[in-house]
Structure formats: structure tokens, C-alpha cells
């Protein structure tokens, strides 16, 4: 595990275009003797020459190692630059960093995933990881449901992945904010899908998406009776070091890069978090 400022080199072995803005970059470390392990929810610092670094959550399952997927949306300088790169190009990575989702507590639970846009990336790692474990051990999880919101039908990312999940028994329900095409599915915000979900005491909810979405989904889950300890989200922040030193990701006395990015609602409630303030 790389905990210095010197990145390890990795090759882009494959690029999967998820939609116009998002692509998944499949990486493999060049020096295979470097020990590398992670858990779903952790992130990497990705280096692109001349563009610096950015924190990107890992979207593949640890079970897919040595391959590491980073699903990246074009947002700033670095993320735009990687979208111009090709398979065979080299990037640098440091990490993994951060606290993962508590996958060890998911046995026999009903997992509810609520995602918006690129927010599906960190949850994808959990879903793949849980599917793998269900295939080898009984009761790894009880059930999995995905509620996934996109802006328009054209913005839906991870289409083929979602189709595969559907085949493997994950209950995937998609919605779009608005449509101008012949979209047959749901139209509306992802929160509109929540009332149809049968929430029980056995539900663990994992939420990731834009800050406003997280806020409303969490509020609604709480209103439906989901306990604070059973709601998890992963926060996005400006990050530079990944090791709790640079200070950019500060969150009321905590550092998102070491104390998060995964937080339970009960943890968030003890903090002063912009996403949830009025």
C-alpha cells in the first residue's frame, strides 16, 4: 500500500465508455510485486502527468484484483485529461485511502443501494463484491435492491453492468429526471422510487450521489423508519494528500480522507455537515 507522495505506475488496460461524460478506466499496476489490497468504498489518488492528482473512488470489487476500475466523469482538468488517454497509456496511483463500507456487517442483510449519476461508482464496488460472496457462501447477503437515478435516458451510465446485475438477482430500478425520447421507464427523482421499496429492520441503505440527492434520500429513509446506524453514504471532497494532512477535506474536526469517505448517518448527525444544514 502506497502511503507516500510518490505514485506507483499503472497501465490503462481497457476503457469502457459508460455514457458521454463517464468512462471506466481499468488499471493494472506495472510493478506486480507491490502489495495492493482494498475494500469497497475506498479511493485512490490518481496522477496524470502535468495535471496533478485527484481522488477517485474504486468502482470495481476487490475480488477483481489485480484489475482496478476507476469510473470517472469529466469535471475538471485532470478528469478531462484522462478522457483523452488510450488503453496502454500510463497513470500514477497512490492508495488506497479512506474507510470502506462496513461490508463485514452485511451478512443476511437486505441491502438497498440508492445512487445518482456517477454516485453509482463506489456502490458498484459493493454490489460486485457482495455478488461474488453470495456466489461462494450462503447468506452473504439476503437481498440487493438498486434505485438508480440519472438526468436523462442518455445519461444512464453502467447500462451493461446494471443488466448483468439484474440477471444475477439484483433488483434494479431506474429512473430519469426528464426525458425527450421514448424512454419506457420511470420519470422522476430517485426519491420517487423509495416509497415502492419495502423497508424493514433488516435493511442497510447505501446512498451516493450529488449532495442534494443525498440530503433528500437520507431524510426520506429516516422518515420511512430506517435507523441512523443502517444508513451509509460516501462524501465527496476536494482532496490533495489522502492521508489526513493537507486539510482540504476537513469536515467538522474530521478528515473525510481518513475518517470517511464512508459515514453512517449516526456519525454525520454528530457533525456540522454542509450537505445537511439548511
Amino acid at each position: 500500500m502506497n502511503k507516500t507522495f510518490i505514485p506507483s505506475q499503472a497501465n490503462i488496460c481497457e476503457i469502457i465508455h459508460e455514457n458521454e461524460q463517464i468512462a471506466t478506466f481499468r488499471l493494472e499496476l506495472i510493478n506486480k510485486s507491490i502489495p495492493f489490497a482494498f475494500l469497497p468504498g475506498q479511493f485512490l489518488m490518481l496522477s496524470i502527468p502535468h495535471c496533478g492528482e485527484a481522488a477517485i473512488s474504486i468502482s470495481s470489487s476487490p475480488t477483481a484484483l489485480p484489475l482496478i476500475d476507476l469510473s470517472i466523469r469529466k469535471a475538471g482538468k485532470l478528469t478531462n485529461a484522462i478522457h483523452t488517454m488510450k488503453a496502454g497509456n500510463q497513470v500514477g496511483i497512490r492508495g488506497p485511502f479512506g474507510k470502506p463500507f462496513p461490508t463485514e456487517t452485511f451478512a443476511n442483510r437486505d441491502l438497498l443501494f440508492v445512487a445518482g449519476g456517477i454516485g453509482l461508482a463506489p456502490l458498484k464496488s459493493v454490489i460486485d463484491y457482495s455478488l461474488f460472496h453470495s456466489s461462494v457462501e450462503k447468506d452473504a447477503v439476503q437481498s440487493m435492491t438498486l434505485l438508480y437515478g440519472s438526468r436523462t435516458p442518455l445519461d444512464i451510465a453502467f447500462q451493461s453492468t446494471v443488466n448483468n446485475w439484474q440477471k444475477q438477482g439484483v433488483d434494479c430500478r431506474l429512473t430519469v429526471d426528464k426525458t425527450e425520447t421514448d424512454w419506457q421507464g420511470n420519470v422522476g427523482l430517485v426519491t420517487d422510487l423509495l416509497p415502492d421499496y419495502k423497508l424493514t429492520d433488516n435493511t442497510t441503505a447505501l446512498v451516493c450521489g450529488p449532495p442534494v440527492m443525498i440530503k433528500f434520500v437520507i431524510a426520506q429513509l429516516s422518515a420511512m423508519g430506517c435507523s441512523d446506524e443502517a444508513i451509509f453514504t460516501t462524501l465527496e471532497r476536494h482532496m490533495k494528500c489522502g492521508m489526513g494532512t493537507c486539510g482540504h477535506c476537513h469536515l467538522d474536526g474530521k478528515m473525510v480522507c481518513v475518517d470517511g469517505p464512508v459515514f453512517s448517518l449516526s456519525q454525520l448527525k454528530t457533525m456540522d455537515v454542509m450537505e445537511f444544514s439548511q
Partner: protein
Amino acid sequence: MIDLKEMILSKDNLIPLLRKLKKDARLIAPVQNKYGDTLFREIDDIDGTEIDLHNQPQASLKPFFLPQQETLADYTITNGEYSFTPPAKAEDTIFFGVRSCDLTALLYMDLIFSKPSKDPTYYDRRNHSLIITLGCNQPFPNCFCEATGSGPYLEYGYGLQFIDLGDRYFVSAGRGKGADLLKKWAYFFREVNEEDQQKRYQLFLEARGQFTRNIQVAHACRKLEKETVPEEIWEKLSRRCYDCGGCAYVCPTCTCFSIDDMILDAKHGLRIRTWDACTSSGFTRMAGGHNPTDRSRHALKRRFLHKLKYDFERHGKASCTGCGRCIDICFGGVDITTFIDLLTTQTQKKP
């Protein structure tokens, strides 16, 4: 066998001692330049340079351990391959004439840069350093180190601590390198007698009595432990913060930094670490434009809570060392003492 922990150095022997020390290491001490600014700098010519022990150095030791800009690695891109080279190693350095507050700050930085693992460049420099402090017999006008527990004299942390007794220095040695030095150069020193001890104690009491500022640091920390700060205070402070970053740059305990690539040419560049300031809005703004901190209201919230609340919770001690530098640099007049005053006077009003 004499006790090597505490010794007396005649002022006549100061330069001879420093001359010896300089043979094995870089010597850095405060020097006043021709514009009247006292700054730490390397002493090349010990006879031709006057070390200024009368004025407070305008900058702390921070730039020597966490430089304003430093290279973390240089990188080369060859045929699409991307390789990094770490920077050169630090040299042995002795810092002389360091004030108590600045050493306290350095001890705090040691904590910050030790997690989760030791920051390579910081600890490289730190391991090659020895700090000789000078206790303050006369606090400077903006100082309040007594309120922050970081002066005027120190109990630990130094290599050597000098206390000016007039014609001589009372020298205390810390563990390790400091004690070794004292042993190695013992012939410059003499033993401490009862009168020296008396004088040192007397000066310590006098120094403590000479602070002109009464800043309620401990009161503020305890208040922040229990209560949330009224939004009006944050808003008032934010309106007056000019976002110049000056407070963070002169602060000896502000360690936030940024990492960027500096392009040298198409194939070469430097990965550089630069000081950053949490008062600026770009500090937290993300690539997509979303910003979890609203600068117009909370420009200074993180700065003051970090020093007085989070660090108090974590280390039992505020990470302000009372050096007073931010008071002079802030042109909005919203330095940490303004905040502490606003916070603590508010309590007194409320029954």
C-alpha cells in the same frame, strides 16, 4: 561528575561555541536585514553577521520544515511512461535563537506529519535538525504565549534552551542531541550555582508579569467544547476576512498544503507542495464547482475551530502558540484574538 543537564555559558563564549557547532552543521539564526526585518537565515560568516536576539523573527521556523514551495518529486514522461524521482536529502542543521512559541509549533507539526506514516520530506528535515531556543524575558507587544502554554520559557522539546541572565546564559539540555552537544563542548561551560538558579527563576516570574495582552484562550477552548458559536460571529468575521491567506502563511502551526504539478516542459515537471489557506474558497471547492464551505459565512470557521476546538479535543491543547504574528498581518482585523474576544465576552453578557 557534573550534571550535564543544566550549565552556564558566558556570553563571551557564545560565538566560539557557535563556531564549533557550525563545523558539523548548517547554522540558522535570526538576522536583521537592511530594511529592519528580522528573519531566520543561514549564517555563513559568523564574525561578519550580527545575530539579532532582540527582535521577534517575522517568520517562524515553518518555512524550514514545510517550505512555502517544495518539490515532492520530479517526474519524467518518456514514451507515455511516467516516472518519479524523490527529492534530495536534507542536511544537518542547527537553529539558534528560536523562541519558545516557534518550537512549540514545531512539536505540534511533528504530530501532524507523523500520521498515518511519517511524512518523508518533513521528517527528513526534522531528523537532521537541532533546535536551540532562547527563552523570552520580555514578551513582544502582540505575544500571548502564556495563555497558550507555550512560553515564555519551555520545559521540554528543545535541544538546548538558553535563558539570558545578563552577562551569561543559563543553558538547559533536552534529551538526545542536546545533551550530547553539551557533553561534547563542556569546556565552554561552567556549572550552575545557587545564584544562577535564583536569577533564572526571578527572570521567569518577571517575564510572566510583562504580558500586555490578556487573551482568554483556555476559556475559549472550554466554551467551544460545550457550545456552538453563534452564526453572527462567523458572519461578522467572514465579512471582514480579505482572504489574503496571510494568517495561515505566518502561522507557525498552519500546515495545510496543496499539491500541484508544475510543468517544466512537455516531458518534465515537478510535483510541488505549496502552503494553502483554508480561508480561501478554492480550498474546498471541487472540480465540478460544488463547494461544501460557504465562504461568505464561514471563511474563518475552520481556522479558529481547528486551532481552539478540534486540536483541544484531540491533543488537550489549542494549536495556537500565542506568537501574535497573525495580529500584525491581518488587515481585516479578524485575527484569532478578535475571535476569542468576541466569543468570551459574549458569555460574560449572558447570565
